[in-house]
């Protein structure tokens, strides 16, 4: 936490600013990634965005076998937010490696996200993915119900989370990010657990568990009843959690939640995130992540920071 936030520095040009960051061993061209589940397998964005404008993307979470998701309705709108209950739908680890990765243009940084309902299967998925060419790192999605704990999310119980990360860490030497569930009392505790088990970085937050009701039909809007709330509405919650986690651990953090603009990304960096992921905003504007990346560099330049990473943790809090 720097104490120098109010000092004004000489302005730079964007070209003078070094946008690169290292996210737990993943070298990124710039700190703007796109979030799992909001960017497909990357190729879908071809018509809208040169993927080399952004730091990279996190692919849709993968399970060992291909899976279908929940029945519709799977999405709903809420104030400044959306809800989703897509659940497990994905092509599976093998099809991802065989078909999706080779279809990507050169020079694109890919983080593979994985999730499962049992710890062994997580470890197996991690093993298969970490061998794959072009996978720069893994992201363990811990917001998945753990079958053995009666459906509690892996990321909601520190002991279960520790077991999971330990098993995945053994299975791979690739850079390993853990994506935390926001549906917890103490995010800092979960962050420390992951750091203790050898995670290289943290991604937070995943969508917030929520429910929306159709008053005319007197039903939940989503067939699954519960869904994940994402978008600008959750940003102040995400900023709080990133700030709390960043003060608890040394490993880098990737901030996620309601980012729609470069300003939003700056907020996460100031709160201690080394990089960010743009999620729901990709639906509103499939080119937005490129604009966020450019805007972040412009912000650093305007405020005289020679490296974008110099912004990290620069929130002036009067020593608190």
């Amino acid at each position, binding site marked *: 936490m720097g104490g120098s936030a109010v000092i004004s520095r000489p302005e730079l040009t964007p070209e003078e600013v070094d946008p690169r960051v290292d996210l737990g061993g993943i070298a990124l061209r710039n700190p703007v990634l796109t979030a799992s589940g909001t960017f497909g397998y990357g190729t879908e964005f071809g018509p809208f965005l040169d993927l080399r404008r952004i730091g990279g993307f996190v692919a849709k979470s993968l399970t060992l076998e291909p899976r279908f998701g929940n029945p519709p309705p799977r999405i709903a709108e809420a104030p400044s937010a959306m809800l989703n209950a897509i659940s497990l739908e994905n092509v599976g680890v093998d099809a991802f490696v065989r078909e999706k990765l080779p279809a990507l243009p050169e020079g694109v940084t890919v983080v593979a996200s994985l999730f499962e309902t049992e710890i062994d299967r997580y470890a197996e998925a991690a093993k298969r993915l970490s061998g794959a060419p072009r996978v720069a790192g893994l992201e363990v999605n811990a917001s998945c119900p753990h079958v053995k704990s009666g459906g509690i999310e892996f990321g909601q119980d520190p002991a279960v989370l520790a077991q999971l990360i330990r098993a995945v860490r053994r299975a791979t030497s690739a850079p390993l990010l853990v994506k935390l569930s926001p549906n917890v009392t103490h995010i800092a505790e979960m962050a420390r657990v992951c750091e203790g088990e050898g995670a290289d970085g943290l991604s937070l937050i995943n969508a917030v568990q929520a429910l929306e009701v159709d008053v005319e039909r007197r039903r939940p809007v989503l067939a699954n009843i519960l869904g994940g709330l994402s978008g600008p509405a959750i940003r102040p919650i995400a900023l709080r959690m990133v700030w709390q986690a960043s003060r608890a651990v040394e490993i880098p953090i990737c901030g996620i939640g309601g980012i729609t603009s470069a300003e939003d990304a700056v907020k996460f960096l100031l709160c201690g995130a080394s990089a960010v992921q743009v999620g729901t905003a*990709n639906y509103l504007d499939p*080119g937005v992540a490129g604009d966020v990346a450019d805007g972040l560099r412009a912000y650093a330049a305007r405020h005289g920071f020679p490296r974008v990473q110099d912004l990290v943790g620069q929130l002036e809090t009067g020593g608190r």
Partner: protein
Amino acid sequence: MAEPGASPAAGGEASRGMPLRVDAEVVAAECEGGANHRLRLAVPGWRGFLPGQFVMLSPGALAAVPRTDPLLPRPMAIYRAPGDRGEIEILFKRHGRGTALLAAARVGQKVGLVGPLGRGFPTADPGERAVLVAGGTGIASIYELGVRIRAAGGAVQVLLGARGVDDLMGEADFVSAGLPLRIATEDGSRGERGLVTDLLEQELRGDAATRVYACGPTPMMRRAAEIARGSGAPCLVSLENPMACGFGVCLGCAAPLREGGFALVCRDGPVFDAERIEWAGLP
């Protein structure tokens, strides 16, 4: 069984051209009575579309921040593209907050646009006989299809349904395009009293050689599909599932298939062979 989360066949991609992500400019905005509105948009770089394709519209320029509420863009069929000047027309109903904002758009204002999206209707066979049946907002999805089938030498009968006359969109356009038109309203305030699917039953009467194209509320499409099946006629439906992205990444618009699994309405559709759809599982 559909492959989970898979991409469309390569052929479809190429034929429909690359979708754009641009700020379109409102060149005409009209309220056509009741909740019906028409927007004409100048779309930089527009390269044409297939009938049945759609765009995702945001009420405001794409780069305008903060975009917060309503959050998601709105899917809208491309009604037609008059005059080949890179302009498209959207015919729509004011319903909730998103369409209220689109209805308030004035000439000169920007509207964020992503599209054209989806596969649209398959190209009509030369000389084919078609019945186009549409209700509510679905009317906007079939006008251009009718025009093109007719231009290709086919025989078209259009059947439009609405609750009442105020609810009916685009009638005059169908008439001036010379498309044979029958109308049914539930309250009898225009055309025949009843459901548009009643008209379909009369038109089809066991005729297996006519292709049925349907777009409108789910119960209407489901009934149209039943009637077509009863006549042994092929039936294509254009679904209107809620969408977040419109281009196959959110997986939100899933429609359950009879064969098992789901199709993505935005990417694999919105037009489907009615026989593939598991109607009971649609929202």
